């Protein structure tokens, strides 16, 4: 392979030597260490390959043996350059494009998300592009570990994240929730307060002084477990006060309002068969649309497909084209029957309850009633749920101060 590259670089020829004494000529080549290869015998002499410079050094031996050489083919870079010496603009353009490609390869032009399930890739992408890494950032300025930390902080669902910079593409690999993080333990002194109005049904105090008890009705913000611990003497007088971070589980039943409605009259899109297509070229944020077909209809849906220019898989470039498809439609007035609307409301309510259950919220009672008002069917009422109602609130005493006390 190396030999072939060297031959291509320095140039080589296929030539035919013919005349009086081919063997003598070959012996002279051997004696003077001139390398030839792929030697084929012909009627009048032989055909061989040799280097461009070797051909020149053969001249005296040709004369000596009364032989002649006819060059049949020329290969390699020196001959290519000579053939194309009048195409300087082409070479200049080629070099310029190479330089441009090199310049563009220094930036990040594409961000990919892999491994997301419940998180929406679009949200992650927009967050990354807005806050940390706008497209077109220099690759040398990308701090992958910093970005990983920032993403872990911004999205609590992420249990593992790794950023990889390859070509002009930044790929964010992530895992969600499969490895649960250990629960965050407060170390600053504070109380556990009620996150909403509820009646306490379960209470476990791990650390702190319980203030409420089972069956109590609490309002949002009421202290459930206090982080202040009093030490009493025999006369029930406080001799020492210490401040810690209250810890415990408090569950309560609370009423959650629920409201939903379905309009009995609605509009449905009736799409027409013809679809208009056009292409928009883009470079960074600049777009150029050579031609837009005329659209008779006022209403249409637009579907844009972005094709980014790229070389192989990981070398994206900041330009490309957008294929835009517009499908016109007319609005058709439709109406639901009460049964249909009721089925829709019930389906939405079931989904809401299922979502609650997935989050560990227990549904105790369902007081949602379906009724009709002002041309729409409404589902109104409350859901009685049992859930954790704790919320940590610092008591404003610094750790060192608390220790001293």
């Amino acid at each position: 392979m190396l030999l072939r590259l060297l031959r291509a670089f320095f140039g080589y020829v296929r030539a035919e030597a013919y005349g009086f004494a081919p063997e003598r000529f070959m012996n002279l080549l051997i004696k003077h260490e001139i390398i030839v290869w792929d030697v084929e015998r012909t009627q009048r002499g032989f055909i061989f390959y040799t280097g461009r410079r070797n051909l020149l050094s053969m001249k005296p031996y040709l004369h000596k043996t009364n032989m002649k050489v006819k060059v049949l083919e020329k290969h390699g870079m020196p001959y290519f350059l000579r053939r194309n010496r009048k195409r300087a603009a082409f070479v200049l353009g080629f070099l310029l494009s190479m330089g441009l490609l090199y310049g563009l390869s220094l930036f990040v032009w594409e961000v990919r998300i892999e491994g997301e399930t419940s998180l929406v890739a679009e949200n992650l992408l927009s967050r990354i592009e807005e806050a940390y890494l706008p497209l077109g950032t220099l690759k040398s300025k990308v701090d992958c570990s910093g970005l990983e930390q920032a993403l872990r902080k911004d999205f609590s669902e992420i249990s593992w994240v790794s950023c990889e910079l390859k070509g002009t593409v930044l790929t964010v690999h992530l895992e969600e929730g499969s490895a649960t993080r250990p629960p965050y333990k407060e170390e600053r002194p504070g109380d556990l307060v009620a996150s909403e109005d509820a009646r306490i049904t379960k209470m476990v105090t791990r650390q702190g002084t319980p203030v409420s008890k089972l069956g109590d009705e609490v309002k949002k913000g009421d202290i459930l477990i206090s982080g202040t611990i009093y030490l009493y003497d025999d006369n029930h007088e406080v001799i020492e006060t210490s401040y810690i971070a209250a810890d415990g589980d408090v569950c309560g039943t609370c009423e959650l309002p629920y409201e939903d409605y379905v309009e009995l009259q609605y509009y449905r899109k009736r799409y027409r068969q013809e679809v208009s297509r056009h292409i928009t070229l883009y470079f960074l944020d600049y777009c150029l649309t050579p031609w837009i077909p005329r659209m008779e209809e006022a209403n249409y849906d637009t579907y844009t497909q972005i094709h980014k220019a790229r070389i192989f898989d990981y070398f994206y470039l900041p330009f490309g084209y957008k294929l835009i498809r517009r499908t016109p439609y007319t609005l058709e007035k439709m109406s639901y029957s009460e049964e249909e609307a009721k089925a829709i409301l019930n389906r939405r309510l079931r989904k809401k309850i299922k979502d609650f259950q997935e989050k560990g919220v227990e549904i105790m009672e369902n007081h949602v009633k379906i009724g009709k008002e002002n041309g729409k069917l409404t589902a109104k009422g409350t859901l009685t749920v049992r859930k954790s109602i704790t919320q940590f609130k610092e008591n404003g005493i610094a750790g060192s101060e608390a220790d001293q006390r």
Partner: protein
Amino acid sequence: MKLPADVQYNDVLIRASGNRELLIENYKGILLYTAEEIVITCKGLSLRICGCDLKIAYFSGYDMKVTGNVRSISYRSNGDVCC
């Protein structure tokens, strides 16, 4: 000290891969080259390679490679080439 014959006497060195390829070192020149017969001069003798589709893949001042379908390799004293 026992040196190899090719070093001590400058003998021809032939390495054959089956009957398809011959690598010849320490040769002096080519006396005859056809598709059926190649005669190579070496020190004190000549080497006669017979076969069909014989071809010199390359030659330089040091070695030579012959490819093709080799039928026989024989040695002859110098001057006894024609047969």
